């Protein structure tokens, strides 16, 4: 299983002996290229075209994060898995209003299922959330009857609003989480969510790269926004099960607290040490395995992302109907 590599230190990433080496004034360390799936760059790394060509050859995606820890973009090698057939069919599924809505509904359907599953977990643990769970289930029933993407997004927004309002009940820390804010996040909990969501987003992007799907043609989000919107679509499903659960555990174990952030101008940003803690936990989580019901074998969380892409690909080529991932344990 290839791994993700995280670069925090400053220096130079180079090609050396058909493998990778990271060098700075103090140390130089080899990175086995065959072990690399994707690279996250948080520090100041310089590299040259010789290296980029080498990364192309090895199908390695590189994700860049800016000084504030926000995702700024990815180095995405030329698509090596091209299929005009899938590409066209994906576009047809987007252009046909009914087909597009069908897929979009499925994304929200499974995302909200996973959200309510999270709440049910804490409800079982003795925190009264029955009212909110009922409310969400009520909203979920409406998903099937919507007639436009906007309406669907509206329902999703309402579900999330209820969902976020419950966080105060089961997180041991005083998070003061009023509402979700972006660009820039105004309190630390929002900043934490943004950071972790960007990790989910990039993981999805890397997995899409290994399928025939085109990451720019999306179904739920509108595709004309200069980003890989299909990645945003698929991320919706995994945010509650991977991202949010990670946030709960980080906060409830006091691994991340108010102290992990610094305020700078009007940004609230994560300290480098905190970023490292989060990434270590995130990395561990993606490696964790579950027994897959259909495949009847152990698969890692990261693999689930890929399977989701495969299912979508099968749907657009009209092989099997797409059914979003719903947590079953």
């Amino acid at each position: 299983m290839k791994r993700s590599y995280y670069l925090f230190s400053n220096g130079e990433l180079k090609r050396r002996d058909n493998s990778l080496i990271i060098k700075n004034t103090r140390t130089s360390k080899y990175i086995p290229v065959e072990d690399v799936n994707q690279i996250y760059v948080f520090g100041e790394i310089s590299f040259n075209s010789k290296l980029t060509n080498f990364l192309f050859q090895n199908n390695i995606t590189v994700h860049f994060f800016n000084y504030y820890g926000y995702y700024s973009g990815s180095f995405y090698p030329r698509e090596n898995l091209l299929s005009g057939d899938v590409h066209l069919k994906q576009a047809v599924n987007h252009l046909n209003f009914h087909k597009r809505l069908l897929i979009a509904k499925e994304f929200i359907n499974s995302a909200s299922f996973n959200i309510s599953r999270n709440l049910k977990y804490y409800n079982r643990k003795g925190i009264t959330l029955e009212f909110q769970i009922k409310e969400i289930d009520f909203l979920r029933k409406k998903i099937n009857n919507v007639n436009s993407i906007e309406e669907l997004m509206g329902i999703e927004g309402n579900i999330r609003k209820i969902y976020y309002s419950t966080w105060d009940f089961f997180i041991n820390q005083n998070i003061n989480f009023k509402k979700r804010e972006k660009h820039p996040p105004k309190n630390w909990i929002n900043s934490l969510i943004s950071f972790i969501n960007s990790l989910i987003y990039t993981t999805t992007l890397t997995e899409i790269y290994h399928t025939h799907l085109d990451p720019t043609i999306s179904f739920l989000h509108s595709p004309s926004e200069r980003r890989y919107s299909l990645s945003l679509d698929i991320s919706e499903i995994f945010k509650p099960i991977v991202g949010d659960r990670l946030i709960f555990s980080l906060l409830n174990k006091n691994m991340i607290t108010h102290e992990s952030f610094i305020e700078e101008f009007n940004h609230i940003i994560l300290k480098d040490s905190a970023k490292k803690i989060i990434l270590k936990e995130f990395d561990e989580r993606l490696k964790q395995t579950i027994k897959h019901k259909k495949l009847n074998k152990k698969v890692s969380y990261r693999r689930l992302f890929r399977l989701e892409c495969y299912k979508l690909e099968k749907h657009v080529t009209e092989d099997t109907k797409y059914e979003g991932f719903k947590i079953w344990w």
Partner: protein
Amino acid sequence: MYVILIYDINIEEDNKKGQRILNNSFKICKKYLNHVQKSVFEGEIDKAQLEKLHAELNRYIRKDLDSVIIFKSNNPRWLMKDFWGIKEDKTSNFF
């Protein structure tokens, strides 16, 4: 699977040739595994990659003079690792 690879390349027989084989082996191994000590490598690798590594190494090593040993384990958990002296995690993916 998790493997530890160690090699012993003979440079006494034919110094120039031995040195070249040593260099090549080093270059090949570090593409697949983490370099831990002079001739010791360690890391997670799958069957296919291990075959590839084997094939690449086979092009250079001499069956009668050099030796490569691979210790395999299904899981790094079954491998208790202690450090005597300098303690350094060379297999980390955080830099």
